[in-house]
């Protein structure tokens, strides 16, 4: 059977120490036996490593930062579309998802498909709404509050015990053991991600994550839980192992069935010392460790592309337990000419 040709645009090519999911997503798509994909990278920074990985990314275009608004993004995507005839876009950053969801209809009219949650689904799982999310769906979550100023944070911290988690709106989280520490993290996070900052109860225990894919009808198409084995100073998994714990699968099924989430998702959980499972965060996209799921037998990026194309995808029923990933860094040698072409023309 011949493989179906498809042009897929992917963001998140920043394969750095806090990696974006773009490159592992592309690896999954490239390994598909059914798809013959041309991969178009969409990059925000000139030094996103994926831009220069020519065996994985066929062509890359610079796109405007989310702060420039969805109209600027749409205009740029249409320029790219006129050259590349995009079939699909897979956005991989939390910060850009709002714009892509808002543009979903216009993109579809232009012939570009996406596979994204609704704005309501996207908003309700926001870090700052996690307590309400837990109440609504009957899921155990740590106590959390959003704060907009140091004074606000001071008031919140009076009723909490240290340590506490101090989290940015989109990314980054720190453990603070005193008000002074929390205040310094507050400044750091607001400078980078803006307001609010989320103050969350600290749960002691073992962190486990789940990568999952939903079809928007309440069905869980893919689900692979992973225990981090090696964590960087940024809290990112540099090594991990697939695990088999039915309570994790049950929780994922419950969330997808109740919320009817459409697209990729990462659930971040902590198993407390008293064996209780806390949902600490929901990331509204595929995580950077997704290639572990591919290696364990669930090619989630491929399934996502197929669902986006309207191809029927049966839920995965198994994966290899005890499959590990070990991340590594690698220096590419890049000619200045490539860099200069990208910076001057916005494409490479």
């Amino acid at each position, binding site marked *: 059977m011949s493989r179906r040709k498809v042009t897929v645009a992917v963001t998140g090519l920043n394969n750095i120490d806090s990696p974006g999911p773009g490159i592992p997503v592309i690896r999954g798509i490239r390994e598909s036996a059914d798809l013959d994909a041309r991969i178009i990278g969409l990059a925000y920074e000139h030094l996103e490593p994926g831009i220069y990985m020519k065996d994985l990314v066929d062509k890359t275009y610079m796109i405007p930062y989310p702060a420039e608004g969805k109209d600027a993004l749409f205009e740029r995507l249409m320029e790219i579309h006129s050259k590349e005839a995009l079939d699909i876009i897979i956005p991989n950053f939390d910060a850009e998802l709002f714009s892509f969801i808002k543009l979903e209809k216009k993109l579809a009219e232009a012939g570009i498909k996406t596979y994204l949650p609704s704005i309501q689904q996207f908003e309700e799982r926001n870090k700052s709404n996690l307590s309400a999310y837990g109440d609504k769906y009957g899921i155990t979550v740590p106590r959390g509050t959003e704060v907009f100023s140091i004074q606000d944070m001071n008031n919140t911290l009076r009723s909490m015990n240290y340590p506490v988690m101090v989290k940015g709106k989109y990314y980054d989280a720190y453990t603070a053991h005193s008000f002074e520490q929390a205040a310094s993290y507050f400044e750091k996070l607001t400078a980078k991600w803006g307001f609010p900052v989320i103050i969350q109860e600290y749960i002691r225990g*073992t962190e*486990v994550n789940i990568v999952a894919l939903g079809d928007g009808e309440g069905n869980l198409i893919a689900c692979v839980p*992973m*225990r981090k*084995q090696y964590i960087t100073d940024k809290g990112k998994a540099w090594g*991990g*192992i*697939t*695990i*088999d*714990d039915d309570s994790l699968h049950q929780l994922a099924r419950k969330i997808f069935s109740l919320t009817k989430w459409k697209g990729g998702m990462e659930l971040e959980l902590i*198993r407390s010392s008293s064996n209780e499972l806390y949902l600490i965060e929901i990331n509204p996209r595929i995580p950077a460790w997704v290639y572990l799921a591919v290696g364990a037998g669930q090619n989630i990026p491929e399934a996502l592309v197929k669902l986006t194309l309207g191809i029927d995808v049966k839920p995965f029923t198994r994966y290899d*337990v*005890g499959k590990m990933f070990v991340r590594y860094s690698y220096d590419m040698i890049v000619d200045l000419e490539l860099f200069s072409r990208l910076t001057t023309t916005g494409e490479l």
Partner: protein
Amino acid sequence: MLIKENIALSENGFVFNPSTGDSFTMNNTGKEVIMMIKEGKDLNRITELMAEKYDVDRNTLERYLADFLNDLNVYNLLEEEK
């Protein structure tokens, strides 16, 4: 006393708990004890067999075995007693 059914134990003493992702390496005696538990032997029988095989006084052996079983329990490798 039972080792959880899904716990994987390899020939070289590597133990993997697929529910938690924890892994451990056992020395030879640890591996022997785990194998005997897996075979369904109770603590008295394991104590007897180890005492026959190794040059160790009974009190020390019982203390070591109690510590080891406690570790297995702490690391979530034993089935909970019904």
